């Protein structure tokens, strides 16, 4: 059904009124039949939908035959008003404002004013919804960034999670050599009985890794290997940074080194690797 911009003549207007009246009459008859035969779903009479649709359909057919064009299914709107007044106000059944009522109102209005209702549905409602979702997402990101900034310093080193080939190139021996060639003593015990040392202070470093957030993984074993490789790379980076930090303050070793791995962030989105211990200076 399309609204025509063409001006109707007096005679056409009379014919249009006739079509609207006939359409309204047919709609009322349909509604009457629905009421008479109690065609209901959970007490909700289907005539509320079908009567306006029948009215609009009949009116459109008549208008096309008599005038030669659509006149906008005005009878559907009239029927909508009639049926709502009768059902809600006069008869006052158990019908209330719910999703079905709201949906049927939209269907009826859409039949009567398709362009306007389509515009409202697609442009206005769609626009409001997308803006609302965007606003929520922005707030979520803002909260996440504040949360992270407050407690952790994001690792600004190379991203170790994105590279699929990482699993193939990660070398345990190379990693071990890299850590132990720093000219730095990583000691997990609490003292070195054979060596004299001076305490530099307590040190801690963190590395935060992004976690794979996909719930369904097509290749779970490969995904797990990737996580493990990322963790190993993260651990190496954490230890190197810890050594550099202590060296900067004049130390050359760490006692009681401990490492922890935790899930952090909203919903456990990240893995935090922490290395801490007592920075020392070992005398020759």
């Amino acid at each position, binding site marked *: 059904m399309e609204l025509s911009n063409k001006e109707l003549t007096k005679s056409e207007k009379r014919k249009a009124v006739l079509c609207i009246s006939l359409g309204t009459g047919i709609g009322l008859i349909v509604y009457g039949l629905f009421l008479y035969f109690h065609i209901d779903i959970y007490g909700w009479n289907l005539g509320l939908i079908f009567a306006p649709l029948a009215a609009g359909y009949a009116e459109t057919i008549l208008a096309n035959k008599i005038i030669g064009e659509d006149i906008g299914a005005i009878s559907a709107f009239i029927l909508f008003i009639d049926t709502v007044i009768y059902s809600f106000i006069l008869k006052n059944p158990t019908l209330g404002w719910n999703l079905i009522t709201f949906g049927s109102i939209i269907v009826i209005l859409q039949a009567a004013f398709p362009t306007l209702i389509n515009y409202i549905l697609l442009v206005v409602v769609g626009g409001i919804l997308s803006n609302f979702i965007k606003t929520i997402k922005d707030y979520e990101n803002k909260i996440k960034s504040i949360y992270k900034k407050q407690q952790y310093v994001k690792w600004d080193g190379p991203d170790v999670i994105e590279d699929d080939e990482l699993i193939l190139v990660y070398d*345990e021996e190379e990693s*071990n050599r890299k850590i132990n060639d720093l000219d730095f003593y990583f000691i997990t015990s*609490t003292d070195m009985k054979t060596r004299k040392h001076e305490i530099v202070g307590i040190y801690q470093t963190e590395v935060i890794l992004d*976690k794979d957030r996909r719930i369904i993984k097509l290749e779970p074993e490969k995904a*797990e290997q990737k996580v*493990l490789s990322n*963790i190993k790379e993260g651990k190496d980076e954490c230890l190197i940074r810890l050594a550099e930090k202590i060296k900067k303050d004049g130390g050359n070793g760490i006692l009681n080194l401990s*490492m922890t*791995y935790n*899930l952090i962030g909203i919903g456990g989105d990240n893995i935090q690797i922490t290395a801490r211990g007592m920075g020392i200076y070992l005398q020759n």
Partner: protein
Amino acid sequence: MILTSSNTLENKTVIEYKGLVTGESLIGSNIYKDLFSGVRDVVGGRTSRYEEEIQKARDISLNSMIEKAENLGANAIIGLKISYDNLGGTMGNTILVTAYGTAIKYE
């Protein structure tokens, strides 16, 4: 290779600190294991399948660590630490097993 969580080795002298050695392994999700575990949760009993998986993961971590210590020329690891961390996963069953310690040479 001697493994100990203490700071020293009794009756032995540490002659050289070789460096830090680590080993990591991951227990991932497994639908059969999870289903079996779920049945155990209903009927009761020990989830031996999980125990086996954890033992396996710990062995992988320790062996990886020992191999590195041997490559450094060490004959013992002191200050050994082993940890089990839950990394979430589909049913919260992705567990990271880490082992690390100080490789030394003793006489």
